[in-house]
């Protein structure tokens, strides 16, 4: 009993904003869209499936932001890694494709990381530049052509398959969130990431290898975006340069709404998952409401603005 009371006391408002917001929007859609199939298990599963790549990217971004860095390039990484995997699988087995996709992500993350950690360039500018650079490379890789992914094992594991009738994208989401949460909360790496973002000098004089942490989080971001690229390629059974293009705002919004501080030292993987589901739910609900694309964009932008304002206002208390 006492531990529950203590836990409740520690649960500050800021942490609960995401839960309350999530619940409020869910209830709103559940009531207003009752007749339009919002609450059907098929539709709810769809939301999780659609948000899987964004959730995976959000996990990487929580680490980067918590360490006081940012990654803007992950959208471009998605396209490059999906195309790398698709091209590789045209002539090699699936494993090579997977390695190519994840490797491309890790490599771009490493480029970002080295520039940020060892040349001390601001991550905002570095990743802004690599975002453009790799968006261009993604376009030139296949001359803007879409590459089909015909490997059934691949599309099963990374897309439409299921295990014990649980869709594989749900499994990816759950496993990634669980591992991400444990690493973030319960490992020395996670603690060092938070300390670095909170007070880099304190971390450094405490013996934490700060540059290595900065390199690590940006490589993690790249690798997670690479995985997101594989999930897109698996679900759509094709890779194209446009993949990930529109994810930048969604993922950043998901992470911030989920309680991760923009300037480091504080964050939540579970919050990022809820943030990502919230974005997916908004998307889904607004379509079901019959709003056209421009109205959807306006409403989504306004809701994100409100959500971000609430979480940030609360954080500055």
């Amino acid at each position: 009993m006492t531990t529950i009371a203590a836990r409740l006391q520690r649960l500050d408002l800021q942490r609960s904003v995401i839960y309350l917001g999530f619940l409020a929007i869910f209830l709103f859609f559940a009531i207003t869209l009752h007749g339009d199939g919002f609450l059907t298990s098929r539709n709810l599963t769809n939301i999780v499936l659609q948000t899987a790549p964004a959730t995976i990217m959000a996990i990487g971004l929580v680490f980067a932001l918590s360490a006081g860095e940012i990654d803007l390039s992950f959208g471009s990484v998605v396209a490059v890694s999906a195309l790398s995997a698709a091209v590789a699988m045209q002539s090699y087995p699936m494993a090579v494709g997977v390695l190519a996709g994840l490797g491309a992500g890790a490599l771009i993350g490493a480029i970002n990381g080295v520039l940020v950690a060892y040349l001390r360039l601001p991550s905002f500018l570095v990743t802004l530049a690599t975002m453009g650079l790799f968006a261009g490379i993604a376009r030139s890789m296949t001359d803007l052509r879409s590459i089909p992914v015909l490997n059934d094992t691949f599309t099963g594991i990374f897309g439409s398959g299921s295990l014990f009738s649980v869709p594989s994208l749900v499994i990816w989401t759950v496993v990634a969130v669980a591992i991400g949460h444990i690493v973030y909360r319960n490992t020395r790496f996670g603690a060092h990431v938070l300390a670095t973002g909170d007070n880099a000098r304190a971390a450094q004089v405490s013996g934490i290898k700060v540059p290595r942490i900065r390199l690590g989080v940006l490589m993690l971001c790249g690798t997670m975006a690479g995985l997101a690229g594989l999930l897109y390629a698996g679900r759509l059974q094709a890779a194209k340069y446009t993949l990930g293009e529109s994810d930048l705002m969604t993922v950043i919004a998901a992470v911030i709404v989920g309680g991760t501080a923009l300037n480091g030292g504080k964050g939540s993987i579970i919050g990022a998952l809820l943030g990502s589901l919230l974005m997916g739910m908004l998307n889904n609900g607004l379509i079901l409401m019959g709003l056209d694309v421009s109205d959807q964009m306006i409403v989504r932008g306004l809701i994100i603005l409100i959500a971000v304002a609430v979480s940030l206002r609360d954080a500055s208390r």
Partner: protein
Amino acid sequence: MNKSDPVLSLTNIHKAFGGVVAIENFSLDLKAGEIVALVGDNGAGKSTLVKIISGVHKPTTGEIRLDGEAVSFSDASSARSRGIEVVYQDLALADQQPVYMNMFLGRELTKPPFGLLDKKRMRRDCQQLVDELDVRIPSATSTIRDLSGGQRQGIAIARATHWASKLVLLDEPTAALGVAETAKVEKLVASLKEKNLAILIISHSLDQVFRLSDRICVLRRGQQIGVRETAQTDKNEIVSMITGVSGSA
């Protein structure tokens, strides 16, 4: 080891940055259970000396001995691994993290089999430590940001004493504190003597130096002016040593 042997022994330490001499011929012995105050005006070289002892800077020439053994620290980590801890003026605390994570910052405890953080043990050890040193905080899980200046200073000092086996360097431990909090921190520093640690404290407050220290070492423009037994000197002598102006009343 003989109890009166110095823990730390500095001999003819000399430090120059390019052509600028920061420390000239500095020699000092520190014994276990002794508090030595380092005083001097701004720019006298106090901070440089702390950085040399804590491994941040290497002396240009001169010798550092720890328990009689000549040592050369490549960085702050190597000095720390030999039992030397520093309480920095800015405290080096991560404000948004809980007290216990700061206590174990960079040296987190883990448990088998997966090497995950042993938060339970860190919380318990931390609580025990702050209780033992009478640092009054709401809980080991409190966030640093929610603590007062004195409490933060208490945490920083508790952390240093927890990890130091030989020497604690305190850089202006009460500069930002009020009267009551200063008294509390001074009590804490004085209690460290019983732990048989050698303590080197930098302070601008001569009242504090006279309350706490066993000996006083004066620096002026990088030169060691002298070392006095606190019981056998007075403020006038120390002030004239600091300023170089003799003939005060």
